[in-house]
């Protein structure tokens, strides 16, 4: 019983307690990919701890069952049931009921997860396929263009995955900015971000009201955007990524000269919003020392989150 309690306690503590500090650590998107990994490790750790806890409940029931039945038989045969036997039976019955309840809850969560991800996969594939048929190929890029005056660019998972641009987006992007957008979307696909989005949204649907999963899905999406921005910046340079973000975000062409040089830091007051925060992040000059410290802290958190459940199971079991 003790390992089950410890594991369940750990799962609950991380599921409710981890989101605020994790959000704080990953807020600015320093080392976006490590931050992404930390959120995912927390989620995986909670799921592993929950499964191990259920398993440990069943093990308790199975281990105590023979001695309980022996005691029951003896007391029935002797015609006298001692209070100790009653208490033992009550306890065992309780643990068995708890195990059954936990299993039922897990099965329900699994069903919700499966339904959500299956629908998401089907809808995504249908969307990608329709985009390939209804869109016009943009020569040499693998992307397709849909006629719509609103500027938009996105990728959607499918067989194959599609990168979709609107004619409105093409109208406001110059060629280097278009290359940055494509590099951003290709990074999503190359790093399987659509898979992460599907899994984390599935988990959010499976465990409604659990902050690690509900808030985590949004945070993972946010960090994936930042990781893709980094990939695009490696190809096109940060100013071009910023120009592309501003062009699509505001629907106006942004001359390259506007963001050609690093911008004096601060004063954008944008960190509260997702898209402006990405712009500010791209404009922020790197700070090697504090960035490295952030990265190390995140890596440490990541390691603890990933290792804790199995250590807990090993030491209490």
């Amino acid at each position: 019983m003790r390992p089950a309690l410890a594991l369940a306690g750990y799962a609950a503590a991380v599921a409710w307690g981890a989101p605020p500090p994790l959000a704080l650590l990953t807020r600015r998107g320093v080392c976006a990919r490590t931050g992404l990994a930390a959120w995912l490790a927390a989620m995986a750790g909670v799921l592993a701890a929950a499964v191990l806890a259920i398993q440990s409940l069943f093990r308790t029931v199975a281990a105590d069952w023979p001695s309980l039945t022996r005691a029951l038989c003896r007391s029935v045969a002797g015609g006298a049931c001692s209070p100790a036997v009653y208490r033992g039976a009550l306890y065992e019955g309780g643990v068995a009921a708890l195990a059954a309840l936990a299993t039922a809850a897990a099965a329900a969560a699994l069903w919700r997860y499966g339904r959500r991800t299956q629908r998401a996969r089907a809808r995504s594939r249908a969307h990608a396929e329709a985009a390939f048929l209804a869109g016009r190929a943009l020569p040499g890029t693998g992307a397709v263009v849909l006629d719509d005056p609103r500027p938009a660019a996105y990728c959607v998972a499918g067989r194959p995955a599609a990168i979709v641009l609107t004619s409105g987006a093409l109208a406001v992007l110059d060629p280097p900015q278009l290359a940055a957008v494509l590099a951003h979307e290709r990074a999503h696909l190359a790093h399987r971000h659509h898979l992460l989005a599907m899994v984390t949204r599935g988990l959010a649907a499976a465990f409604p009201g659990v902050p690690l999963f509900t808030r985590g899905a949004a945070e993972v999406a946010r960090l994936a955007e930042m990781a893709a921005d980094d990939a695009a910046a490696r190809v096109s340079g940060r100013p071009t990524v910023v120009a592309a973000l501003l062009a699509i975000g505001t629907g106006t062409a942004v001359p390259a000269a506007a963001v050609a040089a690093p911008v004096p830091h601060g004063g954008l007051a944008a960190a509260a919003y997702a898209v402006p925060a990405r712009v500010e992040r791209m404009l922020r000059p790197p700070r090697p020392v504090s960035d490295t410290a952030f990265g190390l802290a995140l890596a440490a958190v990541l390691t603890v989150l990933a290792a804790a459940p199995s250590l807990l199971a090993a030491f209490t079991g």
Partner: protein
Amino acid sequence: MRGRDQGSTGEGAGVRGFGELEAVVMDRVWERGGPVTVRELFDELRAERAIAYTTVMSTMDNLHRKGWLARDKDGKAYRYTAVASREEYSARLMREAMAGAGDTEAVLSHFVAQMDGCQARTLRAVLDRLTRDRPS
């Protein structure tokens, strides 16, 4: 990938897989506007690329099965028409793409996510500041 990413680099370099051919067929059907038989489309495509009649037939049959083409029996042959225009499909896709993340279940990653008025104003202000500070 059966995508057009390879196919589009060399125009007219042939057909790579059914996905590409499906797109080509839909292009032609939309361009013609009216009903078209497999034979008519095959004759049109054969002029530009090496292609078999049965390939065109099965592609159009696929598109019918997927709900993109409607068909009527006309004598021995089927006459195919597009179920909806390219613009209608585009509009449908954009509706799904522009819906908030909660409303659609398709997994899309937008380069710039949907913004509320406040976010859009902030972004606008950032752009104004950048262009003002750096007159070109």
